[in-house]
């Protein structure tokens, strides 16, 4: 058995046991209500069968997971008080807390863990999280042994946040389809907060779970998640104190304005795991774009600094590769495609596309996701003027709404498209899908819609996906990223300017790698 897991767990337990964590000096107070504002509408509240921010924020309050992560990408005990990885890496043993109960009073057993994992494996959109799982053994009620067909380094992360909620078998195991189960609208979990009321598209009310398995927590009495239909109203609501937390704040003008409010703290911490990247995707089947030099030339023609500083008010970080900065697997790319119009022109000439009529070489269209003008439409418009300088005539193709765009790009009916894709913690979950040859799947959005295929990248990613040694894994991803950046199926632009704005009287704000998509049991009101 590898002992590292045990030692880390024991140390983390000591730390958590001694008054939560050592980062705060204040005394936590009990009571108070956290009012969180969002424009994201939850379809329902069961993250086992529904991914996405809207369900994850309430879902992580209602449901506990085997592990949780701190702000240094280190796994911490949660429902599992300890865990260990076998020497061959093909099994993980979880030891559950003996005092953990569901909100209806029934104890949590290894049966529930096995049942939850199977439900997630069968129904969750992120198939790569648990596809290597062959089964879960339950030698006793507090021990669950997860078996894998091959070592699976992403497994620990996939057991945190909203990715593996432990759902009660005695509720969900009644034979009904878990995706449309009535309990999804009024769930029974074991997390720090209990479900009270859910009005779709309006609000979600949660209250303190008095029998929570971590003694003395949560501090808050209540969490209310309020839906706003309009981003401007939402920004005004935090500005005037109508709400006291606004996670996933993205409009850069609002970020700049709210930073000036003395009663608020505005931070970009807490989005390391989501890892949202804004980029320009190329359809590598296009007559012009199948040539690597054309794609590279477009990347050289685009001024990333201008986009970040002028279009996004300097509120966003640069993205230079498939993995977001802040992830342990981020590699500082050797080639950053700093703007160079001469080089771009030369490359296009070399590729055999000289300037012709009206000084243009050829024509391309660019799509963008509607609704997020700042990150998508404005950048696409900028590209049109910028690419004209290197002789590419770009036509903007607007989509009236998301499904229209998804149909076009998912159906490979595009030349270039602006896109936003999330890393989701481990590259196995959110990065591989964009580059693997066998994930070129027409009709599926956020698969390999670029139709990019490089056998070497495939091998590197697959190897990194089953390598347990962290240093070796980092090296493999570094190499893969270098090749991808050079092949340029995508021109990486920036990390989404996600921020959390919260009232100054909030203690222990959610700043771990999962941000507000993690249990808010340590949050208190000063």
């Amino acid at each position: 058995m590898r002992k590292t897991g045990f030692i880390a767990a024991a140390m983390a337990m000591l730390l958590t046991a001694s008054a939560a964590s050592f980062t705060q000096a204040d005394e936590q107070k009990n009571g108070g209500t956290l009012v969180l504002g969002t424009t994201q509408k939850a379809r329902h509240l069961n993250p086992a069968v529904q991914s996405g921010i809207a369900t994850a924020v309430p879902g992580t309050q209602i449901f506990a997971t085997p592990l949780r992560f701190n702000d240094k990408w280190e796994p911490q005990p949660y429902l599992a008080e300890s865990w260990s990885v076998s020497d061959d890496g093909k099994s993980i043993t979880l030891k559950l807390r003996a005092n953990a109960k569901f909100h209806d009073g029934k104890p949590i057993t290894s049966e529930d863990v096995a049942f939850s994992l199977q439900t997630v494996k069968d129904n969750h959109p992120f198939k790569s999280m648990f596809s290597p799982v062959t089964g879960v053994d339950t030698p006793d009620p507090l021990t669950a042994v997860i078996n894998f067909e091959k070592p699976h380094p992403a497994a620990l992360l996939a057991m945190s946040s909203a990715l593996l909620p432990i759902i009660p078998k005695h509720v969900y195991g009644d034979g009904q389809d878990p995706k449309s189960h009535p309990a999804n609208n009024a769930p029974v979990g074991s997390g720090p907060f209990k479900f009270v009321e859910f009005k779709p598209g309006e609000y979600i009310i949660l209250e303190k779970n008095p029998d929570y398995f971590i003694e003395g927590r949560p501090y808050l009495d209540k969490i209310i998640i309020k839906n706003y239909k309009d981003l401007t109203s939402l920004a005004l609501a935090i500005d005037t104190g109508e709400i006291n937390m606004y996670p996933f704040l993205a409009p850069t003008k609002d970020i700049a304005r709210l930073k000036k409010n003395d009663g608020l703290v505005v931070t970009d911490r807490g989005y390391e795991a989501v890892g949202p990247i804004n980029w320009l995707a190329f359809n590598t089947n296009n007559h012009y774009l199948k040539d690597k030099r054309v794609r590279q030339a477009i990347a050289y023609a685009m001024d990333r600094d201008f986009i970040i500083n002028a279009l996004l008010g300097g509120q966003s970080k640069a993205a230079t590769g498939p993995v977001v900065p802040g992830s342990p697997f981020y590699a500082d790319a050797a080639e950053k495609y700093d703007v160079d119009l001469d080089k771009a022109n030369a490359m296009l000439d070399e590729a055999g596309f000289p300037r012709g009529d009206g000084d243009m070489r050829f024509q391309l269209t660019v799509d963008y996701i509607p609704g997020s003008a700042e990150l998508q439409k404005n950048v696409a418009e900028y590209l049109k003027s910028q690419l004209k300088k290197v002789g590419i005539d770009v036509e903007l193709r607007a989509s009236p709404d998301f499904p229209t765009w998804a149909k076009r790009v998912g159906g490979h009916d595009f030349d270039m498209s602006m896109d936003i894709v999330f890393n989701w913690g481990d590259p196995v979950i959110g990065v591989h899908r964009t580059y693997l040859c066998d994930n070129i799947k027409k009709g599926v959005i956020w698969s390999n819609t670029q139709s990019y295929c490089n056998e070497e990248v495939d091998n590197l990613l697959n190897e990194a996906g089953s390598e347990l040694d962290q240093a070796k894994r980092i090296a493999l991803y570094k190499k893969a990223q270098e090749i991808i950046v050079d092949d340029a199926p995508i021109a990486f632009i920036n990390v989404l300017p996600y921020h959390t704005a919260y009232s100054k009287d909030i203690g222990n704000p959610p700043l771990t790698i999962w941000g507000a998509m993690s249990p808010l049991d340590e949050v208190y009101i000063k």
Partner: protein
Amino acid sequence: MTMTLMVARRLLHAFLLILAVLVLNFLLIHIAPGDPADVIAGEMGGATEEMLADIRKTYGLDKPVYVQLGVYLTRALQGDLGQSFFYNAPVLDLVAGRAGPTILLVATALLFAVFVGTMLGVLASHKPKGIVSGLVTVVSVIGYSAPIFWTGMMLVILFAWVYPIFPIANMYDITRGGGFFDRVVDILYHLVLPALTLGIVYLAQYARLTRASMLEILGSDYIRTARAKGVAEVKVYGHHALRNAILPVVTIAGLQFGSIISGAVLVETVFSWPGLGTLAFESILARDYPTILGILFFSSLLVIAANLITDLVYRLVDPRIRTGG
């Protein structure tokens, strides 16, 4: 024509109209590119092929459109509006929960517009070339031409941010306790800005309409006769002129019920008002076919009911119609 025959004919018309609304909208929404599976995948941050196929199968989207239409109509006629594709809830529950707020908003705005608009119109007609009249005309034109969401945003910035008198959004404050009475007061408090925003647009039309109609009537012979008889000026305006000038206002109010519901979509979005308007807008973006159709079904019922009420009110205010003249 007897009353029963009229009602029977009206009901038949209404039924055919609703059927046409359902069929047309069903086909229209299916023409729009993308389907609920794409949206659900979008919400989830990605999906696999099998998953998309599974979602399409669950909602019957793998069948030809005419089969889907047939199934939908058969169920709808039995009162079953189906299950929302987006939310994990029956359409009937969603629509029922959202109908109240919309009716409250639209009715308040309409009443406000009709009453205040008529008053302003009468005021303006008193001295057609005076300052008041000019002001009413200018304000009316601005109110009518300004985009409704802009008016809403401006009111929010002014009365909820610069001078924080009113709340920014929502229908009531869920963080606040209190009994039934407190809740009612809270709702009315939250209602002021959205109802004002929606009302202002229509207020302009009623003011202009009343002004024009009053001016026309004030010049007619019987008014001159009334004045010659020595009837007090207030009574001339109120009793003689306004009673006749109000007829076009009633007609327009009935006709406008439909357009005011569509105006509610924008107002509800600005103020996060939990009504049918925002639900409709979100459902279209989500390609949530059953919910869209459910809302259209319900709003066509509302419009038909509003027209029927207009007819009845017309009979009240105009005795000539009552006698079948």
